[in-house]
């Protein structure tokens, strides 16, 4: 009983157990029982972790908030990175501020529409996503370089003492996000806003500002992930961010963050990201037909929501 109570208080543990179980299953299927078999998955999941953490902050702010512009901000950042850096490290000095500016501008635009104009987040971020998609297509015309700066490639693909640097980056992010949620005034306020915006307002919280920061975090991390992904992918291509829409929401939900807001776990999001990538990998290794792989991914997220989501508030538009 005690264990179960502890798990309920530490919802990340469910995703962690899922990861372990699948890892054992994968090991049995392939009869390769070692920790190494997770390394590839963990690298891929690290990119997901970066964007999912951003999505987590937005979801935690409650009110049915969700960031649908993440795929678009990732793609446009990848394009800008490749175009501005021209594959050189000095060019990166130009690309990095540009990418951060994109993240900042996107987050600010999302927040403006949601907080000021009171447009539901789903529509606001959708519209901003459209605008970014156009920007991507226009940037795409300028794309003539196909090499990646070595520094960026190092961050996204190299290993440090056998551990992928991107994983270290993701872990650092988890620690920072976790500390923000647990130890800072902002984190507390965000969770209060997510649970009950009116009560938070009356308790002294700056609700609009808090939500704005959440959207800024999401877009900045999306932009950063897009930049790193361009190095990992060896260039930019259209729709490269697309898979991250369902997966970022999925990782957040699977990780134990409440979709209705007010409670978030960075560690859970980390395990949730790994779990999602691991599920796909397990299905690929065990030779599932491709159609079924998608069905399982979609059905699993719905099932987790249906089991975990009882009694939570619905989207309050």
């Amino acid at each position, binding site marked *: 009983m005690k264990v179960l109570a502890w798990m309920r208080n530490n919802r990340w543990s469910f995703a962690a157990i899922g990861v372990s179980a699948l890892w054992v299953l994968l090991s049995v299927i392939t009869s390769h029982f070692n920790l190494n078999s997770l390394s590839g998955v963990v690298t891929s999941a690290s990119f997901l972790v970066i964007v999912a953490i951003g999505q987590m902050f937005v979801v935690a702010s409650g009110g*049915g908030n969700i960031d649908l512009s993440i795929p678009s901000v990732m793609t446009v950042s990848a394009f800008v990175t490749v175009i501005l850096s021209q594959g050189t490290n000095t060019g990166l000095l130009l690309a990095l501020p540009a990418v951060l500016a994109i993240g900042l501008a996107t987050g600010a635009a999302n927040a403006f529409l949601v907080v000021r104009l009171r447009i539901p987040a789903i529509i606001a971020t959708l519209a901003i996503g459209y605008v970014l998609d156009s920007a991507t*297509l226009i940037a795409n015309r300028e794309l003539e370089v196909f090499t990646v700066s070595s520094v960026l490639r190092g961050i996204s693909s190299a290993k440090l003492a056998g551990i992928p640097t991107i994983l270290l980056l993701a872990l650092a992010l988890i620690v920072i996000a976790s500390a923000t949620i647990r130890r800072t005034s902002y984190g*507390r306020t965000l969770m209060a806003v997510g649970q009950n915006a009116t009560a938070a307002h*009356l*308790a002294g919280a700056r609700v609009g500002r808090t939500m704005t920061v959440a959207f800024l975090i999401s877009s900045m991390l999306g932009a950063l992930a897009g930049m790193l992904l361009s190095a990992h992918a060896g260039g930019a291509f259209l729709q490269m961010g697309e898979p991250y829409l369902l997966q970022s929401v999925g990782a957040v939900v699977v990780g134990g963050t409440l*979709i209705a807001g007010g409670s978030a776990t960075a560690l859970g999001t980390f395990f949730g990201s790994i779990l999602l990538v691991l599920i796909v990998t397990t299905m690929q290794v065990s030779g599932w037909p491709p159609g079924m792989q998608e069905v399982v*991914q979609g059905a699993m997220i719905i099932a987790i929501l249906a089991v975990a989501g009882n009694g*939570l508030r619905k989207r309050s538009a």
Partner: protein
Amino acid sequence: MSDGIPVPEPNPSQKHIESVGTPLLRLSGVTKTYGPTRAVDSLSFSVAAGDIVGLIGANGAGKSTLMRVLAGVTIPDSGELKVDGKPIDFGAFSPQAARRFGIRIVHQELSLCDSLTVAENFYVEQPGRIDLNPLWLRRYQSMALDSLQAIFPDNGIDVRRPIAELTLPQRQMIEIARAACDPLLKILILDEPTSSLDSLRSEQLTHFIRARAAAGVAVIFISHKLKEVAAIATRILVLRNGALVRDTDDATLGVPEMVAAMAGEAGQELERLHRVAANTAGRTLVEIGVPWSAESNQLRAGQIVGLGGLEGSGQRDFLRALYQAARNGQASGLDCHGTASYVSGDRKAEGIFPLWDVLRNATIGVITSAPNRSTIGGSAERGTAEPWLKAVQVPMDRLESPIVELSGGNQQKVLMARALMTNAEILLLDDSTRGVDVQIKRDFYRLIRKIAESGKLVVWYSSETIEFAECDYVLLFHNRGIQSRLTGSDLTEDAIVNASFAERGGATAASVAPAGTAAKRLNALSVMPFFTAAMMLLVIGLLNRNAVSALGLDLLMTAAIPLVLISLAQLFIVGGSEIDLGVGAFAGLTSVISATWLVSDPAIGWLFLALALAGYTSFGLLVQARSIPAIVVTLGASFVWLGIGYTFQQTPGGSAPGWLADLAAFSVLNIPASALCLLVAAIAATAINTSKRGVVLRGFGANPGSMAQTGWSPMSAALARYVISGLFGLTAGLAMTAINTASDINAGNSYTLLSIAAVVIGGSSLTGGRITPLGTLFGAISLSLVGSLLGLLNVSTDYNALVQGGLLIGILYLRTIFSRRTA
């Protein structure tokens, strides 16, 4: 008068005969408690046919609870209720059951569905009288018209207009007419029916009530306008603290006697802890001016200031404005020179954070308003909070319990500790002893006194008049402004009640802001999709004459069909205040099924289509049943549809079934299939929207609460919504197969997000309830024309998404501006 609403002539002699027999309504020992509060305390009385009972009592006397019991909304803890001599089984009692017994209630907080028209609101309440006539709404229109006319002649209300476009007095008239003209009516309960009516309308109502009573209906009339009560009632019941303190059929009972009965001796029951002269030496913390108060009022440190007056006279708004002013330095008519903290008595909606323990609930105030402290987490946090929690007497062994496990009184103490911890100079109390037992109340009063003595300003709004005895002085609110000020020896409950109930003519009715003009502007906005589509077509035609040829139009319309149908599917989901991110993929799947199974084996094909529809619907029901966000569920569902589609058809291909191909080539009077398809879709969607089911769906979209209270099932509404939407999605799939003579599972994906944009551009409200099929159709056509327009302007299609996104933001922005002006 097709429905035969009786408007009998008054017949005074009838009254006596009726009142001798068995009483229509008899209550014995009805008790209802909320926590420690006895809202209704073993209440017994009976009402005979033809009685007009005036029910009066101060704020919090238990009138509303009593009404809710009678209406079947609230089940009492004990007691018996008999209607027409038959005892009522509370286990099976509900608003619908009450209606069947002939009990009808006119709520103070109006229960109409904003998004529905007047006539549709009549239908929602009395769906029994339907028939298969397609012009069914006409019957309700004439019924609504007759009902309104019977009570309020020359009311000028257009029964075809949605409630949202009507003014408050108009809404109140409708609310009254809807209940009062029920043919089954036996007992009519009117809760503050005249609060926004002018004297003419009030007189008309009085006349009508007398006529109905004379015809044998019992009427219970609740009002704060005591003169009105005195004028109309044949009998007066006075409630105080949940109990009946006076029952008289002395029609000569004057207003002063009524006030005396309502206030009673309660003023002396709770003794003042001590009374000192109001501290006038303190620093001025708040200056109040126009529009809150004609003359300048100053609130000083060390004072306890009560905000009195009838409930809803602006006290709470004032408190909120004060809070806002304290945060931003200034607000309209308020100058604030100190920090403020706020304690709300509506703990669930405005106070507690349900996921947290007591400690976190207490510290959030100080953590959020004074950041960068090392007080977060661990013993430091506990150390900060403990003295305050001790001061308000929260049990110290409960600090780590979830706040929701505490009693209301203890929760309220935690909220008080939260406010005190911030050390703000002004403490704003918003009815913060609501539902708290007497002992805790006493503790509270003592605490508040201490706070004031420590040099803080306490501004206190209470719904219990008696609490003002604790104040140094009371600002009396009337009509959203400070009317007068009671201090010193004037400050008795008597005086407060008296001042509150003093009549001030028709001022209330005049103060109601007309909602009509803003609504009209919103209406003008709804023409935009048509206008946009027409303008785009015009420009396209000017740029390329071919485009407005038969061939060009056919091409443009054919291209728009899938988006139009998918948008209509999305429309009904949005009408239910949800969003479907899987509808494009669903259309893709049905397209695949129709191009494969439906060709090779029609029986299995139709079976699969039916299964797909069933699956689509079950996801919708899951959303409803588990209260989970539709966005995420449907996003997940989109992968399920795609996966199944891949499994059925690994590469694009297949062919359209013969009949479908024939359908695509079909034309009447040289009108091509594309135009026919759009026409049929428009007619179908409009027909559904205006059908009885459509009315219910719209009702649920905007006011699920009042729909459920009227007796409609939310699940069956969700079922209908997803079946309709699924059918449109399925048709979109078939149309894609017909147009392309083959299928591709991915072909529908790009329509999903566009469909949301089309619905929004089409003028539907994202908060549900407003369903605009024609607007959506033209919105979808506009979006689909964007590409062609840009092409003709020699602008790259790269800007497609930009224009679509810009259109979306622009239209939403315009709408926000309009609705903000309405507010």
